[in-house]
C-alpha cells in the first residue's frame, strides 16, 4: 500500500503519542454536543421504525441531491480547516488566514444552500407541527444548522485574531480548538445525511 493511501485510511492503534489538539474544555464540550446529537439521531431512527409509512412519505419530499451537496460543502470546509491548522503549525500566518477564509466561505455556502432548503419547506406551508416526520426532520437539521452557524462564528473569531497576529507556530491552541469544533459539526452531518436522506 502506498504511503499516501495508508495515511488516508483509518489509523491503526500504533504510534499515538501527540497531545490533544486544542483546549481540553473544547473537547469536553464536543463530547457533550455529540451526546445530545446522538440522542436526537437515534430518536429519529426509532420514531421512523414506529411510523415507517409516514417517514417514507416525508423522505420522498426532501431533496437527496441537496443533502449530498451540503455534505460536499462541509467536507471541503473541513479540509480547508485542516490546511489552516497545518499552515500555522508550520508558521505560515498567510496560509492560516487564506485557508480559514476558504473554510468560512464553504461554511457560508452550506448556510445559504440549506437556508434555501428550509425556505422551500416553510414556503409549502410545512412546519414543526405538520406531522412527526417534519417535526423531527426540522428539529434535527435545524439543530445542526445552528451548530454550523456557531462554527462559523468561531472560525470568524479565529480569523480576526489571526489577522492581529495572535497565533504562531508555538501558540495556536485557539486554531486547533476552532478546527476541532468544525470537524465535530462535519462528523454529525456524516451520520445525519444517510439517516435522514438515504436510508429507506
Amino acid at each position, binding site marked *: 500500500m502506498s504511503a499516501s493511501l495508508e*495515511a*488516508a485510511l*483509518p489509523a491503526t492503534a500504533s504510534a499515538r503519542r501527540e497531545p490533544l489538539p486544542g483546549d481540553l474544555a473544547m473537547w469536553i464540550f464536543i*463530547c457533550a454536543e455529540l451526546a445530545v446529537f446522538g440522542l436526537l439521531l437515534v430518536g429519529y431512527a426509532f420514531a421512523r421504525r414506529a411510523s415507517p409509512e409516514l417517514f417514507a412519505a416525508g423522505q420522498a419530499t426532501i431533496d437527496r441531491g441537496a443533502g449530498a451537496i451540503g455534505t460536499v460543502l462541509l467536507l471541503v470546509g*473541513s479540509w480547508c480547516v485542516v490546511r489552516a491548522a*497545518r499552515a500555522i503549525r508550520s508558521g505560515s500566518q498567510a496560509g492560516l488566514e487564506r485557508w480559514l477564509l476558504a473554510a468560512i466561505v464553504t461554511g457560508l455556502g452550506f448556510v445559504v444552500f440549506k437556508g434555501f432548503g428550509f425556505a422551500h419547506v416553510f414556503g409549502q406551508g410545512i412546519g414543526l407541527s405538520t406531522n412527526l416526520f417534519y417535526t423531527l426532520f426540522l428539529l434535527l437539521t435545524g439543530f445542526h444548522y445552528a451548530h454550523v452557524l456557531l462554527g462559523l462564528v468561531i472560525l470568524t473569531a479565529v480569523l480576526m485574531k489571526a489577522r492581529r497576529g495572535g497565533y504562531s507556530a508555538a501558540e495556536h491552541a485557539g486554531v486547533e480548538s476552532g478546527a476541532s469544533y468544525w*470537524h465535530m459539526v462535519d462528523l454529525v452531518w456524516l*451520520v445525519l445525511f444517510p439517516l435522514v436522506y438515504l436510508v429507506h
Partner: protein
Amino acid sequence: MNRITIDSTLLVLALLLGLTLAGYGFGQSAWGGASLAALGLALVKGQMVIDRFMGLARVAGPWRWALSGWLAFVLGLIALASVV
C-alpha cells in the same frame, strides 16, 4: 527528477467525496442492502474524519475511542432501528 507528492489530506478529501457519491447512489438504489451499505459508508467516513481531520489517530488517551465509540454506537442503533 522532481518527485510529485500528493498531500495526504487531499487524498482523504477525495476518498470522502467518492464515498459520499457512493452513499448517494445507495440512497437512490432499490437494492435491499442499500440502507445498510449507506450506514457502513458513514462509519468509514466518520472514522476518517476522526482520525485524519480531527487528528485523533496519533493522540494518546481515550479520545479517539470515545469518538469512534460514539460513531459506532449511534450508527449501530440506527442500523438496528432501520434495517433489523
